[in-house]
């Protein structure tokens, strides 16, 4: 028998998708039965009360979580988010319901042993509920009490060799795609870069000193499996400089039906014979491809790395050999200002240990943003407020056509006199005599 009646939540279970309500109910039943004899350190009916408080929120159309809460572990300013219920007497199991963030492994590779280890700690000291993974990419442990925090911190660091993630105005837990470990499209070793920068920027990760959050994400190629361009302040996206490699014999094999397009991903129904012109050439956003019935040609100078031809015919068309990454800055979700995507800052950088070139860009941005950024202003907003030119200046990057969104239709970029060979003279007073404001 459930502790609270939850008719509104129950409706969420009737949809075609897996339901978090069913998951929480399952955990509530498991904790009540306690088949493993766990000596629970927080209230046993924490998951039941979580359902109860959510049902009440649905009924009242108001949240019953208080705003804010400051809890943490010694030495760190982030990683734990305080959460308190404003109806603690009705729902004592979630009076405290703090979230703990843990750094996930690069590429999210786990062993079953590791996951069991994390869950043994979390069943004992928390609600047993997790969010794998949060939008930032980290392991999110949902719901524990203040006295358990130091214990959890000790256990995850000593037993699991795992550190807390980021929260507050700091570097958030960096995230990457699985990169070259599994993927032929990856243009650099995302896992190594992600892991190295996580280790190098421990201070920034654990001790908040930024105006607001700052996220790194590393995509191995423009397919963007971690969506860095949309979700991270500092997006690193794999790219290549040299020509796309084409194996003409294999192109013919695709046309003849010997290879399945898209790696056989459209196997569910019969889409008819593969039509290379319709499905690849005509789909090219810049129209830089042609197929004359025997040979596939690509005008590489006009390729924008959309990945469609490579995704459709991976056996025949491959990324260029000279690989590296592009760095983009400033994506964010809407808070102060609307949502925005990252803007291209460094068109091409060779990604090689010890990554000094990338770190220089990062640190220049941080120095500038920490000095100029307002409280709760993402770097993308600082960039918009103070201009992209200012960003180029502080990062010592020269303006180039790639920085202009549509260089062919909008070629304008402001240059200072000293940036133009020979300079130029401008007499504002004389100009205004001829041109009214």
């Amino acid at each position: 028998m459930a502790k609270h009646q939850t008719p509104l939540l129950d409706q969420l279970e009737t949809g075609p998708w897996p339901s978090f309500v069913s998951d929480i109910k399952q955990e509530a039943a498991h904790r009540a039965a306690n088949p493993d004899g766990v000596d629970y350190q927080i209230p046993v009916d924490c998951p039941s009360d979580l359902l109860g408080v959510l049902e009440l929120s649905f009924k009242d159309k108001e949240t019953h979580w208080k705003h804010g809460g400051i809890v943490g572990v010694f030495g760190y300013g982030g990683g734990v988010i305080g959460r308190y219920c404003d109806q603690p007497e009705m729902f004592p199991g979630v009076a405290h319901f703090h979230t703990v963030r843990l750094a996930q492994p690069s590429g999210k590779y786990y062993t079953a042993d590791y996951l069991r280890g994390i869950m043994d700690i979390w069943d004992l000291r928390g609600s047993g509920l997790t969010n794998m993974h949060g939008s930032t990419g980290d392991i999110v442990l949902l719901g524990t009490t203040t006295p358990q925090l130091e214990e959890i911190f000790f256990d995850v660091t000593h037993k699991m060799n795992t550190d807390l993630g980021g929260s507050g105005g700091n570097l958030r837990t960096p995230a990457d795609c699985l990169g070259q470990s599994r993927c032929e499209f990856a243009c650099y070793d995302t896992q190594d870069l992600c892991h190295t920068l996580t280790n190098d920027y421990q201070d920034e990760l654990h001790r908040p000193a930024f105006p607001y959050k700052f996220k790194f994400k590393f995509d191995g190629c423009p397919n963007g499996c971690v969506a860095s361009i949309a979700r991270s302040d500092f997006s690193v996206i794999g790219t290549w400089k040299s020509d796309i490699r084409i194996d003409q014999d294999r192109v013919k094999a695709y046309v003849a039906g010997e290879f399945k397009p898209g790696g056989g991903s459209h196997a569910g129904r019969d889409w008819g014979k593969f039509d290379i012109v319709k499905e690849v050439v005509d789909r090219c956003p810049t129209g830089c491809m042609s197929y004359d019935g025997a040979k596939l040609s690509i005008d590489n100078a006009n390729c924008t790395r959309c990945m469609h031809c490579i995704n459709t015919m991976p056996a025949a068309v491959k990324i260029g050999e000279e690989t590296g990454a592009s760095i983009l800055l400033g994506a964010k979700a809407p808070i102060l200002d609307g949502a925005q995507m990252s803007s291209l800052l460094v068109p091409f950088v060779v990604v090689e240990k010890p990554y000094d070139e990338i770190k220089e860009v990062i640190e220049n941005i941080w120095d500038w943003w920490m000095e100029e950024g307002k409280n709760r202003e993402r770097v993308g907003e600082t960039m918009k407020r103070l201009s992209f030119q200012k960003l180029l200046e502080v990062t010592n990057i020269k303006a180039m056509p790639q920085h202009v969104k549509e260089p062919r239709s909008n070629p304008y970029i402001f240059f200072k006199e000293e940036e133009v060979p020979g300079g130029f003279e401008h007499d504002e007073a004389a100009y205004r005599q001829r041109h009214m404001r």
Partner: protein
Amino acid sequence: MATVEYKGKTFEVDEDGFLQKFEDWTLEWVDYVKDSEGIKELTPEHNKVIEFLQDYYKKNGIAPMVRILSKVTGFKLKHIYELFPSGPGKGACKMAGLPKPTGCV
């Protein structure tokens, strides 16, 4: 609302142990909070941080950004964490009697 009694004084605190009223702050409060924030002995450096936080709060009605705290006191962030192990937001602001800094999820 929870209350704390210490050396003859009574303090109203929230669930994170922050003072409800800035005016309630006294030296006894600092002494009371010290242990739970992992501070063994109070030094002039602790007082410098506390005094600055209080000054800033009286003038501006909010806690300063970490960067400003660091700049004015001349203490690097790492040193502030050595002084206040639970950090400037939790430890130092709590000791100085400032209200809880707003959510930083």
